[in-house]
């Protein structure tokens, strides 16, 4: 029984090896990577399709309406209709636009977004490349997306696109700092930049409890900070200023239509999944099960379950919050996120050198919570915002 479950867990690895067995050894590495890449492309494109439906339906339910429910069972074939629509739409390129760059921007965006998956362990032994510098690779690829966004905004020759691109780049650069700083605590603790060894470290258990980094004070703070920064990095509400539709139409992709527009959507969602997957890898134990007695469930199931949970949270947040303003966004990054991530680094160091026990928990917890409260209170007081009382005239 146990053996069979293990086989189920490793089914993709086994299938891969079995298929490659029929090929001459010379082409095996190449074919193996092509197979894996194709699988990742298909899986995450499919996840994108499902997410669009889930998002629209979820937002619909949050807003007390149905959401798409006409195409296919419960509207779940809606992405196919959307895809056909965007494929058959006319591809309009503005006349003064820089045609080459205008064309390259969505391609680069999607390519960069997909490249990030190379170092994300989707399941046990399921990773494209186990790199020594995996985390570094991820952030390096992430910075390519900024370039794509700039290219889109600049090449459109539209003021709205340009404003959107400026906003997007400023936002992505600002939030890359806390994003990287928030993930450094994990690297400090695990002593490795390899995503595989980071997950392997977390996939051990004390009793039934896993050693996920999120279950430590610095890990929790790091996770929260990482998620806030990731929301901003992937331009999700409430940080969706670059495409703030009520202000600058659609931001940097205002002048895109048809399938290129769809590619931007694809790129954004794929990027969002990638950052979420990175958060899972760094803090939520990657593919490891939340309890030791649940380890018999295949590892990739846990990975996607965690990913879906994060996506649903993104949708929930989007359905609730209004958008921030540019200066407030920047203030949040530089005045709250940055000091907090730096303090979190210190906390992680203290945690590392203190003996395990309740005292360590207490001190490190205080080191995270107290500055957070002080900082947010200080910011709130300086801005003087409050729920006001009103006078009435009879």
């Amino acid at each position, binding site marked *: 029984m146990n053996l069979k479950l293990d086989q189920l867990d490793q089914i993709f690895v086994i299938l891969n090896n079995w298929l490659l067995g029929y090929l001459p050894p010379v082409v095996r590495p190449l074919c193996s990577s092509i197979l894996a890449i194709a699988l990742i492309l298909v899986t995450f494109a499919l996840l994108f399709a499902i997410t669009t439906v889930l998002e629209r339906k979820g937002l619909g339910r949050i807003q*007390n309406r149905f959401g798409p429910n006409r195409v296919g069972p419960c509207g779940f074939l809606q992405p196919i209709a959307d895809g056909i629509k965007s494929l058959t739409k006319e591809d309009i390129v503005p006349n003064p636009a820089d045609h080459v760059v205008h064309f390259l921007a969505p391609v680069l965006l999607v390519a960069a977004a997909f490249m990030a998956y190379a170092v994300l362990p989707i399941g046990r032994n399921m990773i494209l490349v186990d790199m020594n510098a995996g985390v570094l690779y991820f952030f390096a690829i992430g910075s390519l997306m900024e370039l794509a966004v700039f290219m889109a905004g600049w090449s459109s020759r539209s003021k709205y696109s340009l404003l959107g691109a400026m906003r997007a780049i400023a936002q992505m650069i600002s939030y890359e700092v806390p994003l990287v700083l928030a993930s450094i605590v994990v690297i400090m603790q695990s002593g490795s930049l390899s995503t595989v060894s980071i997950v392997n470290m977390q996939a051990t258990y004390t009793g039934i409890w896993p050693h996920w980094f999120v279950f430590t004070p610095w890990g929790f703070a790091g996770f929260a900070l990482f998620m806030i920064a990731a929301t901003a990095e992937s331009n999700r509400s409430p940080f969706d200023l670059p495409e703030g539709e009520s202000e600058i139409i659609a931001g940097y992709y205002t002048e895109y239509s048809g399938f290129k527009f769809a590619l931007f959507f694809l790129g954004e969602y794929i990027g969002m999944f990638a950052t979420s997957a990175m958060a899972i890898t760094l803090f939520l134990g990657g593919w490891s099960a939340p309890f030791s007695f649940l380890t018999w469930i295949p590892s990739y199931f846990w990975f996607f379950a965690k990913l879906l949970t994060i996506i649903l949270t993104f949708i929930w947040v989007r*359905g609730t919050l209004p958008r921030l303003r540019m200066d407030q966004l920047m203030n949040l990054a530089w005045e709250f996120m940055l000091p907090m991530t730096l303090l979190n680094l210190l906390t992680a160091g203290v945690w590392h050198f203190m003996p395990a026990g309740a005292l360590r928990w207490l001190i490190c917890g205080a080191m995270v919570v107290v500055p957070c409260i002080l900082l947010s209170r200080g910011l709130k007081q300086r801005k003087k915002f409050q729920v006001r009382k009103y006078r009435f005239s009879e």
Partner: protein
Amino acid sequence: MVGKGIIKGMVETARNFLGSYVSKQRLTTIQYPEERAPQIEAARNFPFLVFDGTDAEQGLRCVACQICEKECPPKCIFIEKSKDKKPDATGKMQFYPATFNIDISVCMSCQICVEVCPFDSIKMDVVYDLSNNDRFAGLLLHKQQLAKSNEYYNTIHPTEAAAVDAHFAEERAKAAARVKAAAEAKLAAEAKAATDAKAKSETTLADTQAQPVGGGTR
């Protein structure tokens, strides 16, 4: 503490998310082609012409007095009076509209034509799926499309139609009495009928003003 308001909001949306699955109060959407909103009696959309009996040509109540044409604020009604006469709803000989067109692309559903009509012949319809491929000819409704039976009127506005029917029954009874009287005094009949018609139109007018059409008070 920063974040309290945000968390409160998140709880509220979660409540609505779940609530939309259990409570009809939260999910008010009606799935249009399959489900339809319940018919509201007072609803109004575009005008139509009422006819009595089965023959739309013969039973048409409209006497082509052209008041509605004159009073219509956007001037979307076009009437051409007939040359000959036919008996109207109370059996009196009247003109009838040779042409009666309403351009519903111009009509703004204000119901003023209904309020000013002294003959209870133009009423508001409730149909709303009137989309058409031809935006000019397709939205110009002619007499044949406009004429709808009194039974139909009774189904869409029962209270109002009952009042109108009662009024007509009274008028018909009066007219019958008049016919009877006319048979007794044949000579004076024609002159008398002329004055009666005038009087009748005035009483109807006063009636419409005192108790406007459309309400449930009558």
